[in-house]
């Protein structure tokens, strides 16, 4: 290009890259180093222990429970959110006020959401049991977060509740950019609304959906704040809501095993990375087929 290109590039990039390097990259690199030690959090000279920490992960019932639960969340949450959000986005066409309201949860900090939902689920004076009694379904009352079979689903419901609004707005924005005449032409050709949606709308907004998959996939591997604030134990009952992030947090700050906790972090990192790449590939192929 023009003269002074590199001078401009260096001038423009040096500050952000330095900031990123100092505050983001360097701590992570140090954490990667810590993963190979038995550092207890206060010791000045941790021992190098090789891959010991990583070996232990596969015998650690708490980490495995977290892995299993995050896995289930990964299967359920993104799909549920995307289906719901697509349906709501399609249904709210022309009624803007709903979309404004649906976005509300997006404005709340997870900590606030968790505190709120704890009051929803609480057995004896909670909103959910109260509502069930009010509509004559008193026999459905449950100790929602205290039953191992239900607790994780309750957590996932909150995740879905808090994410749908954002994707409704995102998808409906994308849908509005689909030219009306295409839809009308299809309708005139005798295509039903479902066919139009599947054959025309969805392929045209697929890029937004793809972004949604990846973000939701990453979010499904987290869940720390919700589980930590809301659930019994936390992480219970009987580890039924344990997530990997909580395991890492507990290992570091309660058990004082910072080296081992860092190893968990490294494992979570590689998992997240693989899943992001996987989702990118899977969703990409589908777009080709549909488009």
């Amino acid at each position, binding site marked *: 290009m023009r003269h002074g290109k590199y001078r401009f590039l260096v001038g423009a990039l040096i500050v952000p890259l330095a900031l990123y390097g100092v505050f983001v990259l360097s701590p992570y690199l140090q954490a990667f180093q810590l993963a190979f030690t038995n550092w207890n959090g206060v010791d000045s000279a941790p021992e190098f222990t090789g891959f010991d920490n990583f070996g232990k992960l596969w015998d650690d019932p708490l980490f495995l429970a977290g892995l299993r639960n995050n896995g289930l969340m990964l299967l359920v949450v993104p799909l549920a959110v995307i289906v719901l959000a697509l349906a709501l986005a399609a249904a709210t066409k022309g009624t803007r006020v709903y979309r404004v309201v649906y976005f509300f949860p997006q404005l709340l900090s*997870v900590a606030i959401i968790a505190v709120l939902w704890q009051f929803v689920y609480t057995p004896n004076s909670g909103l959910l049991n109260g509502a069930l009694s009010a509509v004559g379904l008193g026999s459905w009352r449950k100790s929602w977060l205290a039953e191992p079979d239900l607790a994780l689903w309750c957590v996932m419901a909150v995740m879905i509740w808090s994410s749908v609004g954002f994707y409704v707005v995102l998808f409906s924005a994308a849908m509005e950019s689909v030219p009306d005449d295409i839809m009308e032409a299809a309708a005139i050709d005798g295509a039903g609304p479902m066919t139009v949606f599947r054959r025309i709308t969805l392929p045209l907004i697929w890029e937004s959906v793809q972004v949604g998959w990846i973000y939701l996939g990453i979010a499904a591997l987290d869940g720390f704040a919700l589980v930590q604030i809301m659930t019994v134990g936390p992480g219970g009952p009987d580890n039924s809501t344990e997530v990997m992030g909580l395991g890492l947090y507990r290992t570091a700050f309660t058990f004082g095993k910072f080296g081992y906790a860092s190893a968990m972090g490294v494992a979570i990192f590689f998992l997240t990375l693989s899943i992001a790449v996987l989702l990118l590939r899977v969703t990409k192929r589908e777009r080709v087929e549909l488009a």
Partner: protein
Amino acid sequence: MRTKHAFLTLWAALVTLPLLWALMSSFKTDAEIFDSPWTPPASPRFDNWSRAWEQASIGQYLFNTLIVVGGALALTMLLGALTAYCLARYEFPGNRFLYYTLIAGMLFPVFLALVPLFFVVDNLGMLGTYHGLILVYAAYALPFTVFFLHGFFRSLPGAVAEAAFIDGASHAGVFFRVMLPMARPGMVSVGIFNFLGLWNQYLLPKVLNPDPDHYVLAQGLAELAVSQGYRSDWSGLFAGLIIAILPVLLAYVFFQRQIRAGLTSGALK
């Protein structure tokens, strides 16, 4: 048609009910919250709010949050836009490498970095300071900002920039006078996301901001939520929750047209 509206109304109720209920609870006494979670207060207790504002220092936390989030947002937007622009519009060796290194930042579980990060900040003498938090917030918001704006700058037509160069504009001039204004819709969208993210940031200040006088809102609220565990003040907690929610909610309702416009163009890229 009817089922569609029932569905829409149901979801709207699901979204708003817990919030309205928290609002109502913030006017009740502790005993009323426990005895009858469903009924409105006998008489509204405004003292919950003043107690949260003064004794629980929610007012001070709000002020701290505005400074930190405001500073970090401005910095993130400037640096993020510059970086994304350079990576999107210039070919140079290492471009892809830098881009992916930056994007990788979105995938790291944050508390993997917490302890080492503390020392970096401590060694720079920035622990518990506004500028320390601002820099760290900006650094952690950078990956998403770059990721989002990168696509945006890519999709902008090159002709205008070419014309500006022919007119003798400098690289910086083209960026600030031509490209940045064209990217305004994208900037608005990413600015909104960043604002929400920074406003609700919890883990970073918890570790890097140990001074109670500098607590941000989410931190202060968590404090309130923890201390209710020791000395019950649930009504005060609800009042604090609402105070924390309200400014963002009002800003959203007030600016929702602009926000949606920003989101739309963001989605279109």
